[in-house]
C-alpha cells in the first residue's frame, strides 16, 4: 500500500486554467505538507497543515489554496496558472513532533504551457 499518494502524476495545462492536485496518506500522521521542487531541484515548503489546521503558509501567491477535508487528505488548488508554476509538487506527511521525518509522495509534475 502506498503511504502517501498524490494524483495526478503528470499535469499539463494551459496558462490561465485552474487545476487541483490531490494527496492522501494512510500513515495516521497529523501533519501534512506541500513542497515545490523547481528545475534546480530546490525543495521549498509551501504549506503545512496539522490536523486540518493551517500551520505554515509561506510566501505563496494567493492563487494557491490548500484544502484539508480531513487529516488524511490535503489537496492543492491552483487558480489562473502561470508559466512559472511549472514544477514538481510534492505532498508529505509526518507526526507533528519535532524531528519527525517526512514521508513524501512521488510528486506531481505540473507543466504550464
Amino acid at each position, binding site marked *: 500500500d502506498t503511504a502517501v499518494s498524490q494524483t495526478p502524476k503528470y499535469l499539463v495545462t494551459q496558462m490561465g486554467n485552474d487545476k487541483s492536485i490531490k494527496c492522501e496518506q494512510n500513515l495516521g500522521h497529523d501533519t501534512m505538507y506541500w513542497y515545490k521542487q523547481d528545475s534546480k*531541484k530546490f525543495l*521549498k515548503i509551501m504549506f*503545512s497543515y496539522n490536523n486540518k489546521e493551517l500551520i505554515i503558509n509561506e510566501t505563496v501567491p494567493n492563487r494557491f489554496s490548500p484544502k484539508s477535508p480531513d487529516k488524511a487528505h490535503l489537496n492543492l488548488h491552483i487558480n489562473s496558472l502561470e508559466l512559472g508554476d511549472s514544477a514538481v509538487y*510534492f505532498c*508529505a506527511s509526518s507526526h507533528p513532533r*519535532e*524531528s519527525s521525518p517526512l514521508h*513524501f509522495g512521488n*510528486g506531481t509534475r505540473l507543466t504550464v504551457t
Partner: protein
Amino acid sequence: SQKIEQNSEALNIQEGKTATLTCNYTNYSPAYLQWYRQDPGRGPVFLLLIRENEKEKRKERLKVTFDTTLKQSLFHITASQPADSATYLCALDEYNQGGKLIFGQGTELSVKP
C-alpha cells in the same frame, strides 16, 4: 540570509569506494539534521537523523557526522554500489519545533561499476 549548501556538482565515484557528501549551513542553530535520498521521478526518502549532541550516527553502510562548530554535516556511504546512485538531500528544521524542514539543493551521486 539563511542558507543550506550542498556540493552543487555531481559526485562520480567507483564502486567499492566511500562517497562523502557535504552539507553546510549558515545562520541556523539546528537541533538536528536529516538526510534524504531522492531517485529520479520519486519523492525524497528519509535515511538518517542526527542530533546536535551526537557527533556521529551510523546505519548499515551509511554514516553521518554533525559538527555544530563548523556548521557542517558529512554523509558517507562506504563500499558504495551502483544502486546508491541518487540525489542526496540534507534538511534542517528552521525553528527546531517541527513542521518546517528547509532542504539543501542536493548532491547527485553516481557510482560506476
